[in-house]
């Protein structure tokens, strides 16, 4: 079969895109477009949507005190969790890659035991969320035999008769969730940043060294600026993770269905959405909530992309 070169190329492109696009459109894009449509209806989630109510769901949302509470909590998670995770991951990656004392090649290498730390820190990433949930449920146990309570009692911060109410405390429940999130994700970004750091040519470090730069200076003047790309990626992914947090809140915090903590003090948008879907029979309303979450995430990512735009360096 002798086809024109251009035609052959077109056929190739089409044949390669067909499978991936089909699967993706059917199982991701379409349900998701439907979500937008359903958000304009009054729908219980059982029978097909009956009544189109326009933007009523959206108006109701912003008068809904629980929704606003959950939104505030997500905003707190959104600010605290990515920031802490990135700073920690950066610091660890720095220690592991260029934090060593006695120079290896060009005076740059990681601290002793780097390989061990790298393996350990990444470990939470390979645990399924279910395992993490069961693990922390046992650790946050609010009696004196829970692991964390055992630790604070040992440290003398409280006594055996007054164990801390980690997940039952209105003040701490959100921080407990955020701690797990950070615990879970730091390792992943540590590996990502490490990889980026190792791609930085050694001669840059040597040059900095020759110019008499100290370690801290080298870090802020050489390493950091060259890592912008990966930091950007990290921000976007962490923002998405922060808007989620569903599994943790739904299974760990006290609450009748999908958790939410004492008096919604641990409520996040995802759990409130699911409760509306599955328990309160307000699927249309939940879809509207989903759309709001989506736009928040989208705007955030665009802001991050714009704000961290830098000149790209090729090396």
């Amino acid at each position, binding site marked *: 079969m002798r086809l024109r070169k251009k035609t052959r190329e077109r056929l190739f492109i089409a*044949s390669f895109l067909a499978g991936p696009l089909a699967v993706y459109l059917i199982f991701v894009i379409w349900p998701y477009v439907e979500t937008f449509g359903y958000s304009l209806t009054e729908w219980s989630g059982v029978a097909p949507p009956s009544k189109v109510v326009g933007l009523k769901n959206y108006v109701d949302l912003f008068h809904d005190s629980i929704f606003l509470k959950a939104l505030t909590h997500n905003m707190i998670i959104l600010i605290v969790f990515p920031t802490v995770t990135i700073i920690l991951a950066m610091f660890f990656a720095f220690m592991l890659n260029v934090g060593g004392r006695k120079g290896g090649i060009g005076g740059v290498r990681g601290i002793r035991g780097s390989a061990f730390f790298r393996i350990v820190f990444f470990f939470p990433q390979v645990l399924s969320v279910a395992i993490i949930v069961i693990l922390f449920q046992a650790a946050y146990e609010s009696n004196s035999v829970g692991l964390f309570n055992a630790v604070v009692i040992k440290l003398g911060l409280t006594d055996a008769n007054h164990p801390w109410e980690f997940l039952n405390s209105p003040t701490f429940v959100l921080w407990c969730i955020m701690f797990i999130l950070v615990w879970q994700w730091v390792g992943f970004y540590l590996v990502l940043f490490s990889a980026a750091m190792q791609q930085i040519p050694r001669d840059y470090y*040597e040059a900095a060294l020759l110019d008499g730069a*100290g370690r801290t200076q080298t870090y802020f003047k050489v390493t950091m600026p060259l890592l912008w790309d990966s930091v950007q990626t990290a921000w976007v992914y962490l923002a998405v993770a922060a808007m989620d947090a*569903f599994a943790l809140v739904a299974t760990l915090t006290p609450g009748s269905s999908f958790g939410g903590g004492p008096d919604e003090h641990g409520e996040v948008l995802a759990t409130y959405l699911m409760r509306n879907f599955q328990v309160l029979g307000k699927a249309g309303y939940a879809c509207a909530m989903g759309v709001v979450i*989506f736009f928040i995430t989208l705007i955030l990512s665009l802001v991050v992309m714009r704000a961290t735009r830098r000149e790209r360096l090729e090396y």
Partner: protein
Amino acid sequence: MAADMTQTPPAAPPATAGKAGGKPGGGERSRRFGESGATLNVFGTGFMGVWAIMVLGPVLWVVLGAFKNSSELNGSAWSWPHHWSFDAFSRAWHTGISTYLKDTVIVLVFSVSLTMLFGAMAAYVLARFEFRGNRFIYYLFVSGVMLPVYLALVPLFFQVSKLHMLNTYQGLILVYVAFSMPFTVFFLHSFFRTLPSAVYEAALIDGASHTRAFFQVMLPMAKPGLISVGIFNILGQWNQYLLPVVLMQSQHGEAPHYMLSQGLVSLMVAQGYSGDFPALFAGMTIAMLPVMAVYLSFQRQVQAGLTAGTLK
């Protein structure tokens, strides 16, 4: 973190620096480099030690818990198992862990392979060919990263239901593949862009078809990228909890094909009633072992795969 370190004043490089065969970074210079961060080092290493304990502590505590009996477990957090028996493990194994493991492995073998094949095909075409709609399709794929899974959950449930794929392996496999596309395409797209075209063009001139050039030239060259994104997909799909909970429920009374994560939580609920926490902890330990083995043996490849992204 930005501790104000005493900065060493810039000094002229020692005259020996240019000496042939002189080890770079030997002696004086690297000493100075190290000095500027002595405090940082002590503090940093200490802090990393604390973090390592925070990661390993709960995990080890749970593994130990699998060997304790219920009264030891409820007595004190610091109790040590008196007699090391594997009773709890066999109880957990027979309450379903074995089945969950088998089902999970079946799904993952197919879903990860298909994710890699489809992701590589799409990313490759989008990265290296000019055609109308290229940018649009690329952004369509990548924008999926913004989409939290539970957002499309109910329409997705009906979609899978319409295709009669609820509680089937193939249904979950296709859904996993679809939801893994955004990250896979995003990652491999940037990877394929960095690959040199010389070898590929030579293959075309030698009369290879586009398809053949892709499978025999480009894919082997992209191996490091494929490995690292493959590992992330294995972990991601292994960790998936919400999708199987929604899609793998028993339909019309046949047995549900639980994924491991889902099975563990149902075990947690069951143990909550029976109070058999050692069995629950044993189940978790069993669930952690294969992942740990995979992780520890592929550890180096994850690093290598990520770092080999740029070809010098």
